[in-house]
């Protein structure tokens, strides 16, 4: 007791920690905690405070531990932080470990029906009478379990200062305006907040204060952004097979397409979504649709992409436009199916047998998930080739702040498609694989074109410029080289690297995808330690000379990625061998998003070595 008092004193003297901490909620999956966590997250966002939310969940439907981490940071650094400052313990199975993981001085909120000892004195522990409070709520018994998790929302709101009105708004967002569930859930939140006000005394330093740092921003996940981007890109055909973490992309398409893409006059659909029997069929359908002149896509993750490989190779060779999203998870094999990684880069770059090269887009924010989703269709159709978009679980399923989505600023590019009237003008003289324009991109016709000269035969076997079967060595050689030429043609059309420069920086941090928040935070820390860095985020593959130009500028380029073998590092050295000695790999994978700290530690140690 005496020790406890001592700590209380200590805490009081310490200054409050405002808008800079992380909260981890430990629950059991399938217990309805998603709604509670989403409500906390969005309420904080609506208070104007920069925030992010990441779900560290098991590959299981019900009953295994799940952690939801919310990072609040007034400076906008919202990458994952390993340490929890506040822990909400709702899961008896992980209670002891959760308690141990809390930082000294942290706040520990726990359901008081978990009858386990609080073994630490260097933290502040707050019991929450979850069961007791829920019993007082006037709702049918079967609903009680679902709303029990709202108790911690109310208690937290009271103790760290989440605006209750913002929680109500967040619940309205979550339940899409449905009054009844909002009322029930908010009732529990209010009750719990009231209880906390009367029964708990604030002894921890963590507090929220409204800011104005999120106004105008949006909070969403990458899969929602991708689905919407595809819809505004005019997607017409989607075939998919369920796989975490790609499923929600297709499900978002299914949710939004009926609202956005019915013919206003007839009410008829301008799109098709098919849940295929497997990825072999999902890609077959998408390739068929792309060949038929539809904007076609599929979404999957590593295992599914493996099954799609043969058709994508055919798509490359037969020059069929199609877009496939790979929401990467941890492999090889089923690996850690509910954890994040950037491990499919080299696989995707060379996917297909024989000489294949694929366009890869690598979005680095929810905004780019939206933008690349519509751009991918333009690129696929313009260059008549599959386009793979590499996202990951962290993007796809976690909540990120971003700017409002921007409406496409250019008309759709449907590529070189000839219809009846075009063939009329050409007097029917055209050939499917003839490189008329000298850019490697031939003209194509699509089914339904009634001109008697429109049809051609598409095959995976060797063919000449007239789409006839050919085993002629010259035809084969010429065809593969034209495909290579096409590859050169499209490079300048791909999204170029994003760059951030600082005066006097000698080192450059190179990355792609979802790691930017951790890198930016690391750069700020490094700067404080006297290490100035520039930043380059690659956004597409094949790399252009621009990448080479940027990297050659620095003494050291740290290539940062979430995988074991340094796949981006490999590709960069392969394409620019002359820069190999200037590339240092930081590749790390443990299933979790990158943290600033691990990166700072690595770079500081390396730079010290170098001195």
């Amino acid at each position, binding site marked *: 007791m005496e020790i406890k008092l001592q700590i209380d004193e200590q805490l009081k003297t310490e200054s409050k920690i405002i808008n800079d901490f992380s909260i981890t909620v430990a629950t059991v999956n399938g217990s309805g905690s998603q709604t509670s966590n989403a409500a906390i997250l969005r309420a904080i*966002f609506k208070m104007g405070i920069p925030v992010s939310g990441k779900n560290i969940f098991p590959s299981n439907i019900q009953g295994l531990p799940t952690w939801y981490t919310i990072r609040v940071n007034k400076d906008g650094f919202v990458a994952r932080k390993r340490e929890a400052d506040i822990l909400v313990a709702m899961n008896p199975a992980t209670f002891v470990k959760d308690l141990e993981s809390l930082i000294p001085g942290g706040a520990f909120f726990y359901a008081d029906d978990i009858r386990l000892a609080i073994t630490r004195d260097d933290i502040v522990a707050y019991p929450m009478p979850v069961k007791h409070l829920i019993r007082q709520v006037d709702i049918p018994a079967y609903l009680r379990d679902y709303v029990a998790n709202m108790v911690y929302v109310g208690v937290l709101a009271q103790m760290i200062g989440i605006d209750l009105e913002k929680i109500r708004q967040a619940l309205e*967002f979550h339940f899409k305006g449905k009054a009844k569930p909002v009322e029930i859930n908010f009732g529990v939140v209010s009750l719990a907040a009231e209880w906390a006000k009367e029964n708990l005394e604030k002894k921890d330093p963590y507090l929220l204060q409204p800011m104005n740092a999120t*106004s*105008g*921003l*949006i*909070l969403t996940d990458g899969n929602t952004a991708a689905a*919407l981007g595809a819809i*505004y*890109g*005019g997607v*017409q055909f989607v*075939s998919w097979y369920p796989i975490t973490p790609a499923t929600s992309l297709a499900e978002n398409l299914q949710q939004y397409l009926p609202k*956005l*893409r019915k013919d206003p006059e007839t009410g*008829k*659909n*301008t*799109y*098709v979504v*098919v849940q*295929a*029997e*497997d990825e*072999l*069929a999902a*890609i*077959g*359908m*998408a*390739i*068929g*649709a*792309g*060949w*038929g002149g*539809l904007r*076609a896509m599929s979404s999957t993750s590593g295992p599914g992409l493996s099954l799609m490989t*043969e*058709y994508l190779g*055919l798509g490359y060779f037969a020059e069929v436009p199609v877009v496939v999203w790979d929401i990467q998870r941890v492999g090889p094999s089923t690996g850690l199916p509910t954890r994040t990684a950037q491990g499919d880069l080299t696989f995707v770059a060379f996917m297909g047998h024989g000489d294949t090269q694929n366009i890869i887009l690598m979005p680095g924010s929810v905004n780019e998930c939206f933008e690349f989703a519509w751009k991918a269709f333009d690129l696929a159709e313009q260059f008549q080739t599959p386009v793979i978009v590499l996202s990951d679980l962290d993007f796809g399923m976690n909540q990120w702040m971003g700017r*409002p*989505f921007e*409406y*496409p600023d250019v008309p759709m590019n449907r590529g070189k498609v000839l219809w009846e009237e075009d063939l009329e003008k050409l007097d029917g003289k055209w050939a499917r694989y003839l490189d008329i324009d000298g850019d490697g991109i031939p003209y194509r*016709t*699509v*089914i*339904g*074109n*009634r001109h*008697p000269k*429109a*049809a*051609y*035969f*598409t095959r*995976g*076997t060797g063919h000449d410029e007239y789409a006839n*079967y050919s085993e002629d060595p010259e035809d084969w050689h010429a065809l593969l080289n034209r495909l290579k030429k096409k590859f050169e043609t499209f490079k300048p059309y791909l999204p170029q690297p994003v760059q951030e420069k600082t005066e006097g920086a000698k080192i450059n941090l190179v990355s792609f995808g979802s790691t930017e928040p951790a890198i930016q935070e690391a750069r700020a820390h490094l700067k404080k330690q006297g290490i100035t860095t520039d930043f380059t985020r690659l956004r597409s593959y094949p790399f252009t000379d621009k990448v080479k130009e940027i990297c050659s500028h620095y003494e050291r380029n740290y290539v940062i990625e979430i995988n074991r073998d340094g796949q981006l590092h490999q590709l960069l050295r392969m394409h620019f061998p002359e820069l190999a000695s200037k590339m240092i790999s930081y590749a790390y994978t443990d299933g979790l998003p990158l943290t600033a700290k691990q990166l700072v530690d690595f770079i500081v140690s390396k730079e010290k070595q170098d001195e």
Partner: protein
Amino acid sequence: MSEQALPTDVRVVVNSIGLTKADYRGNPSTLCQGCGHNSISSQIIAACYELNLYPEEIVKFSGIGCSSKSLFYFLNRSFGFNGLHGRMPSLATGALFADHTLRGIGVSGDGDTASIGMGQFKHLLRRNMRLVYIVENNGVYGLTKGQFSATADQGLELKSHGINPYMPIDIAWEALVGHATFVARSFAGDPKQVKELIKAALNHNGVAVLDIISPCVTFNNVDHATHSYAWGKNHETALHELSYVPRAEEILLEYDEGETREVELHDGSVILLRKLGRDYDPTNREAAIKVLEEANSCHCLITGLIYIDPNQPSMWDIFQLTDTPLNRLKENQLRPPQETLAELNRVFQA
């Protein structure tokens, strides 16, 4: 279409849309002479000609195999896509959504359908996509040189592969239990029936499975053939190099409805063909199951239209698409207006 001025002294036979047989032709076949697949191609040509279909309104699909190659040997004026082994159903499904006014013809083999493609085949059936699905069934893998396929009879002996120890897959049976809405079986050597069935299939609003027994004249069982057929194949193989492909005649036969016929195939084995009688009702599923089961126990093959359900909605009907083909929709029909995005942004905003 095809309105070229023709020399007046040449009499050209045209169908009622003014097209000649030549307008339906494909490239010269490179399959073996006498291969059953060739005669099926001819009947596809004849059926489309006689049905007065514009070739531009037909789309051809196939998987991989000798059978799948035959796509190139008919309907040159139709678009065609020779896809992946066993994965033609998905390809056709996606493509046909591009323009719902088109008819699809898919050609597959017994390996392509009953082995690697069994999954896609079954799922094509349950979706009832409007596609004529022809299996050119020869009981072997032709293109990879004569391995047993999954439809090969148990106990069949092939020269380089011994005796097939496994039970066969019956494609018509699979189609029927898989809820295909049109199931037929025929024999490539019976061109009239093949043609009539293709015509019926082209007119079916849904998936139409045609399991056509299509003898492979090259990878037969010559060594063990005790019955000789009048084409001297036994002798010829013995005299030539292994890679030599002997000439053979197509097996042609005619028989009446209700009759059972014994047919000796190129490999010396015998199949029994029995035509279904006039009183057979192909819309009765139970009867169809019964007739296939009976055929199974008497080791004969039922040919003709085994089952049809013309009333099931096709996959297209389910999707409620615009009357304009999807691939002709313009940007303003595909990209929602800007206000809708502003509204969505408001929802996600702080």
